[in-house]
């Protein structure tokens, strides 16, 4: 249990979101994330799990309720959004590396153009992150020359370059071939032990068991159940959680 601070770093307060006029994708979400906590969010597809974490860095807008990230409430205010995005890093399912830039240029882009760091300093900091994800030797290659697992590790390093307090992972291993999933999970496990707050949407239950402080199960836009991994996997309370676990742990 990693609750070291009294005030949570992310607060969802009766957050609701609709797509268009008819699709109610997030229903009355109440959630508190403590600093340094590692959370895994799972659930069937279409349950709103990706939408939930995309609201945290305003890639999606919520229509009702309050969402407070690191003391800043997320609204239409541009300055607030910029401030939150500096503290929150994101890793995507499709990696979303910039194919026309080298790996090193991918990492130094934001520190140089947003953080206003001089090039040398940005490159030094980038190399530190690349070493951290054990891919420093590929610094001058282009993303399309790397394997999927290597690209995702570069994406993680790129997010880490901004020294975020919170890291969001949106199904980071779903697009990878099976033999590459392990190298990415290893990096995420190493990160977990360094005190950074992590929210991870994933189907990799092994990772949840190894690292998570809390597992949140979502279905049809609602948080159905949340518990520590041990109790969640061995003793699911709700019918829907039992149904879901039987499907994914079965084969």
């Amino acid at each position: 249990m990693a609750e070291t601070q009294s005030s949570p770093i992310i607060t969802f307060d009766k957050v609701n979101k609709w797509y268009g006029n008819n699709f109610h994708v997030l229903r009355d979400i109440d959630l508190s994330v403590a600093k340094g906590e590692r959370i895994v969010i799972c659930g069937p597809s279409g349950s709103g799990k990706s939408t939930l974490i995309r609201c945290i860095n305003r890639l999606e807008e919520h229509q009702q309720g309050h969402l407070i990230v690191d003391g800043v409430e997320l609204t239409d205010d541009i300055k607030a959004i910029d401030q939150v995005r500096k503290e929150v890093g994101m890793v995507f399912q499709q990696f979303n590396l910039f194919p026309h830039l080298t790996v090193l240029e991918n990492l130094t882009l934001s520190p140089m153009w947003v953080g206003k760091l001089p090039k040398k300093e940005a490159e030094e900091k980038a190399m530190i992150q690349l070493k951290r994800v054990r891919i420093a030797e590929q610094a001058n290659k282009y993303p399309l020359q790397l394997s999927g697992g290597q690209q995702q590790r570069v994406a993680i390093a790129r997010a880490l370059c901004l020294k975020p307090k919170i890291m969001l992972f949106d199904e980071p291993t779903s697009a990878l071939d099976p033999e590459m999933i392990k190298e990415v999970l290893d990096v995420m496990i190493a990160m977990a032990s360094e005190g950074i707050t992590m929210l991870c949407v994933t189907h990799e239950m092994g990772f949840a068991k190894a690292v998570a402080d809390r597992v949140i199960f979502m279905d049809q836009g609602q948080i159905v159940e949340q518990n520590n991994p041990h109790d969640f996997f061995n003793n699911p309370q709700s019918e829907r959680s039992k149904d879901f676990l039987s499907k994914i742990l079965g084969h």
Partner: protein
Amino acid sequence: MTSTTLFQPIAARPAPINTSGPVAWVKTNLLSDWKTSLSTLIISGLLLWYIPQLLSWAVFHATWVPNHEVCHNNHVGACWGLIAEKYRIIIFGRYPYEEQWRPLIATILLTGLLVLSCVRAAWKTWLPILWVVVFTVFFMLMYGNVLGLEKVETNRWGGLPLTILLSSVSLVLCFPIALVVALGRRSNLPAIRTFCTIYVELIRGVPLISVLFMASFMFPLFMPPGTDIDVLIRVLVGITLFAAAYMAEVIRGGLQAIPKGQVEAAATLGLSYWQTQRKIVLPQALAMVVPGIMNNFISTFKDTSLVTIVSLYELTGALKLGVNSDANWRPFIIEGYLFIALIYFVFCFSMSRYSRWVEKQVNKSKLR
């Protein structure tokens, strides 16, 4: 009970002769079945009959000397003597005869620049500067009035230099306009999106000739009273606005092909809208649409032939100018047209070959 035979690797052998090589090619491509063989027979028969006749007219019995009486007497061959006699007025228009070395050099410089810009190795920071330099030299040579060169008004510019000038200047000028319009069409702000859409759809719905008429007749009315706009500038503005609408559509296609995740990743890294467009979206989009941009350039190059109708004497107009007033050569205007067709063909065919080569390169770099 299983019997296992030891695996013996077989060395590669060449294919049997009737499945590869020229004989096999003929068999599969020309004589594969009776219908194909029949059509091969008929077509080869027709070709063998017509092609020698064509060659005889165009080459063997043709007149090459610039003597119109010999041409008149020659009823079985083409009269290329027209070209020999009139080539200078066709290629240079009404430019003064003694000064025609100036458009010659200017055209060679500009063509060389265009060819150079196609080579990937030249895509460095000094290329735009070179463009500015070459254009300045071009205008200095053509217009004169500096360095002791005699002044030549723009309405005497014509022929091939005019065609290349109009195509390349409109390409350079329409690009920024097209970029802004393409971005505007994809914007979230309804007023800007509507305006850009109206512009593009309006221009694409009308023929170039009406835009040229508008530029020629109406442009002087749009300017404050007393200003006199050069006819070349009017035509250039018309062609540029026209080409920009089509170019905007090409660029918009490239913008649409960039996955949304790229913009999202840039947003999570804290980049602003313009930073994202400049550093992430546009470099990828533009690299993708180079073949489309080339096609646009080829179309504009062909479209410059229309300025004949608004009294600028590019190749076609210059030919009519040179021949219509000269009764001796009038009957042979067809050969003149064929010559101009050849010039256009050479330019456009090379450009389309290049565009196809670029497309292959772009597709190759997509694979790992």
